[in-house]
């Protein structure tokens, strides 16, 4: 019988290896899998390449992972956020490299990585400094740049409800990058607020079908980043 549930966050991230590329769901705090990230901090993997829209805030979740020196490179669209104090220091010191990708290009590159599309053309960034180093090509009189699919070894995802097959539904704008990241990673790990028996989720409404998910761990009452930051929490 297929059962993708694992007992805890520690087991879920146990095999993340040094040098891995890890996609982390979330846009700001919405959809950020804080408990999985904290388990990854405890686990100790380092030299990670992290893909996320941002760089976290305060000293919890993604920001704590960066602060712990585990992230050698971050691929994101917007590393500057209120309360984002950890990344700027490491970036300026050269300790953490940055690949800046326009947000829509980032989402599409991740989807392409998951959909077996090695490369595609997009109008975004044409005529800007972010076009540098990219191939330009004209289609029907308009210029586009070539962008490459982006895959990962692991994806850490926060869902609302999941089942043993790994089917997942999300909560409002916490959905954001998670469904495409689930597609693009060799191993996709989901923390969900509840786990339900197979068949309880309406098959018409499943957002991430189980084929894209490898492990599901229940985190019934996930922390909210903004609340932790407001409380001045620093992880670990």
């Amino acid at each position, binding site marked *: 019988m297929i059962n993708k549930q694992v007992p805890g966050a520690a087991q879920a991230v146990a095999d993340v290896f040094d040098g891995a590329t890890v996609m982390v769901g979330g846009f700001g*705090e*919405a959809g950020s899998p804080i408990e999985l990230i904290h388990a990854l901090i405890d686990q100790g993997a380092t030299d990670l390449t992290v893909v996320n829209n941002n760089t976290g805030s305060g000293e919890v979740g993604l920001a704590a992972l960066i602060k712990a020196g585990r992230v050698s490179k971050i691929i994101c669209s*917007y590393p500057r956020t209120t309360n984002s104090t950890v990344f700027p220091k490491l970036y300026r010191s050269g300790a953490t490299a940055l690949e*800046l990708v*326009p947000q829509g290009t980032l*989402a599409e590159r*991740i*989807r392409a990585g998951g959909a077996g599309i090695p490369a595609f053309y997009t109008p*975004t960034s044409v005529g800007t400094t972010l076009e540098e180093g990219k191939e330009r090509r004209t289609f029907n009189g308009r210029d586009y740049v070539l962008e490459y699919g982006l895959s990962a070894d692991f994806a850490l995802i926060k869902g609302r409800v999941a089942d043993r097959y790994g089917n997942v539904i999300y909560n409002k704008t916490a959905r954001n990058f998670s469904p495409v990241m689930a597609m693009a990673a060799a191993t996709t790990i989901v923390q969900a607020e509840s786990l339900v028996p197979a068949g309880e989720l309406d098959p018409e409404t499943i*957002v991430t079908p189980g084929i894209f998910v490898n492990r599901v761990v229940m985190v019934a009452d996930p922390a909210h980043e903004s609340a932790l930051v407001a409380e001045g929490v620093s992880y670990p």
Partner: protein
Amino acid sequence: MSDTRTTPGLTRDEMAQRVALDIPDGSYVNLGIGIPERITKYVPEGRELIYHTENGLLGMGPTPEPGMGEPELINAGKRQVSAIPGAAYFHHADSFAMIRGGHIDLCVLGALQVSERGDLANWSTGGVDAIPAVGGAMDLVAGVKSIYVITQHCTKNGEPKLVESCSYPLTGPAVVDRIYTDLAVIDITAQGFQLVELSPGVSFAFAQERTGATLIPIPQDPTTVKGE
């Protein structure tokens, strides 16, 4: 930003109100962070606009009452919002398919600079030590059907933001359709900055003095004015 303004001219809220007048009923609109967000307050009675936020919501509603918001219902500026009846949630690739695919009618953005050919610079001052952060700005200007800019006519130091050529890194070349400032409404045309309207109490000379490129006067025959 403080609420300093070039006198005479519109306040930020008046600028937002002026833009709101020009957005047709039924438009799908993406509003940048800052002054553009104020537009929602001034949509004329009888018009329904649908707001898109690139982090996965179509049908964004007003800011919730203090304490009533949810940390997982936010806008692209990461502020808590609400959803109207008839809203839809979707993932980021679908959201930017709406943007890149030309499905959004209008995007209203702030600006550091706009050139007379419609180049927009609004994402970076190009500082050596700055953390570069682009977000969805380049996708929006490349994909949305119409791009309006809402901005003070000049910087706080009195430098013109409407220029012959942008000195800051571009968000996109030749993407802006129309500019709303405290002093004027200006279209980008093949000839350059075409003045459409001056704010109450603002003379052509006053606006021209504060513009870093030639302002083309409003044509005498009002029927030839390009506008909504």
